[in-house]
């Protein structure tokens, strides 16, 4: 087994045996070849998204974990958040420039939950309309500018 699959296997095992608060790990979380996952996250108590459930889709290239996974919200419920576009794309530095192989599915999920938690207002980014019309399907093809560290 190559190192990418071995690592994903290990991550899957860890996540399903002891999922941290806010991450729901169902049986069919990963595809058979482990290259695509769907993880459910729950909005943290005391935040704007308390109790809401969202689905995150992860896609892994064979270079994983050296190159970052492709992560986006999918399904009916896309959170309205200043860093989340209505097509599910997420503007988060650790998914692009700041990715390192020491991060994992679990740490990405937790970062996203914490990103949701710090929102003060439920709304999409100001350039949502134009971005959604013009962006690539793969969020990793977007060159993100991280200009707002407060949310």
């Amino acid at each position: 087994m190559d190192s990418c699959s071995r690592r994903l296997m290990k991550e899957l095992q860890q996540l399903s045996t002891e999922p941290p608060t806010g991450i729901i790990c169902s049986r069919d979380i990963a595809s058979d070849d482990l290259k695509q996952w769907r993880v459910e996250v729950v909005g943290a108590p005391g935040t704007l998204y308390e109790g809401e459930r969202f689905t995150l889709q992860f896609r892994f290239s064979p270079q994983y974990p050296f190159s970052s996974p492709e992560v986006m919200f999918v399904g009916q419920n896309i959170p309205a958040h200043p860093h989340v576009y209505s097509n599910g794309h997420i503007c988060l530095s650790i998914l692009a420039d700041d990715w390192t192989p020491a991060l994992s599915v679990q740490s990405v999920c937790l970062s996203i939950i914490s990103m949701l938690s710090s929102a003060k207002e439920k709304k999409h980014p100001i350039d949502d309309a134009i971005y959604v019309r013009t962006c690539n399907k793969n969020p990793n093809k977007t060159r993100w500018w991280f200009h707002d560290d407060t949310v």
Partner: protein
Amino acid sequence: MADDDDYYEQYSNSSSDGEDVDLVSEDDGIAMESEDAAGVSNNVRESQEIESRTMTVKDLTVEMRDTINDVANIVGISPGMCRILLHKFQWQKESLLERYYEATNADAFLRQAQVLPKVAIEKPISNIGDCDVCCDTTQLCGLACNHLACDTCWKSYLETKITDGNTSEIQCIASNCRLLIEDEKVLHYVTDPKIRAVYEKLQINSYVETNRLLKWCPTADCGRAIKVQQSEARPVLCESCRQRFCFGCSYEWHEPVNCRLLKLWMKKCQDDSETSNWINANTKECPKCNATIEKDGGCNHMTCRNQACRTEFCWMCLGAWEPHGNSWYNCNRFDDSNAKNARSAQEQSRAALQRYLHFYNRYMGHQQSLRLEAKLYATVKTKMEQMQQQSMSWIEVQFLRKAVDVLSECRRTLMYTYAFAYYLKKDNQSMIFEDNQKDLEMATEQLSEFLERDLENENLVTLKQKVQDKYRYVDHRRQILLKYCREGQEKEEWEFNA
């Protein structure tokens, strides 16, 4: 080390190509000198040009290593760490050392520069463990911060960062650890000669880009960097490809316009020119919402298509339609005050466009002519060969090439005078400038015409005299114009609209 040698050989080959080019141009230099000796007071060399040194990648590597070693000897840390440190200080050795001596705590200073870890976690007792990255149980190692991974993962991590990340300043594998990895460690893991070569290139690139005294030559594939003593927006010459460019903005030398205005001008030209040309000729604007309207037939009773506007107006006078009543096919309401206001607003915007196009067209005209001068070089070359067969020596016929050189320089200067003039506020100064510009333009056109047309009709002795007289005069005009602009700049007398 053998790998490194291969890398250099590659570059030294290309630099010997460069020397060939140098040889040709040195010949030029000799010709020019002899002309000077014969009484030519001026040559095409820019008077503003700054002393500079053209450096190959090999030169740069040597210089970078020397600087690193100097600092390493003083500060007492590894050369790899020194490179990071110098990078942080934009390769200003003196200011780095000053700050280093000022710092009360050397370690804190190095931590600040990401050379030492902010917090080091405790080193585990056994170096066998689970690698966080690939999940294998194996021997682990790490940097001073003790974030561990196995050898294979370090290697893959560094290789990905070098090839995909395009950077020679790489952070530790752990997220949130900002420690930068020193070259020695990088090269310990990265053994593939191809990737090592990329890494060396990135190091050199980072050296040039962060160093205020260095700029890459903008010519594609030239690969040389120009080093100056003091960073200034003045022309430098790449000795290798003979490209002259502005050290301030890396664009071709653009006197008299300055870098800031040139940038504005280029942007404006890119955004506007063609479209505005057409708009100007074919459209009018709705007097109320300023939507641009093209009339492609029909009567003069216009209804603005803009759903939010729907103004009804007359195409001829741009006044409201209502008072026009039945005389719809012939506007006779020219003096109506509303219509007058609408027209004057429109005339203003038209006038601004007209003004811009005036400068743009002349700018483009000279640019076009400058391109065509390449053809003139070919004509002149044939003529020079002819003359050499007839009795003149090689050196004696160089005056013709020189004439085309001067002509090209004048075209370039004229081109940028229009960008300069576009932003210039109208005052006495600007009128004198325009006179200078006119004189240069006339003289340039005369020289150009002479070279294009009259070469064949003159006998050799008078030809040389005439050509030399003309190009000396033209170049003189050019120097006068530039001197005037420079003096105005020094006294801060120029007023711009931008």
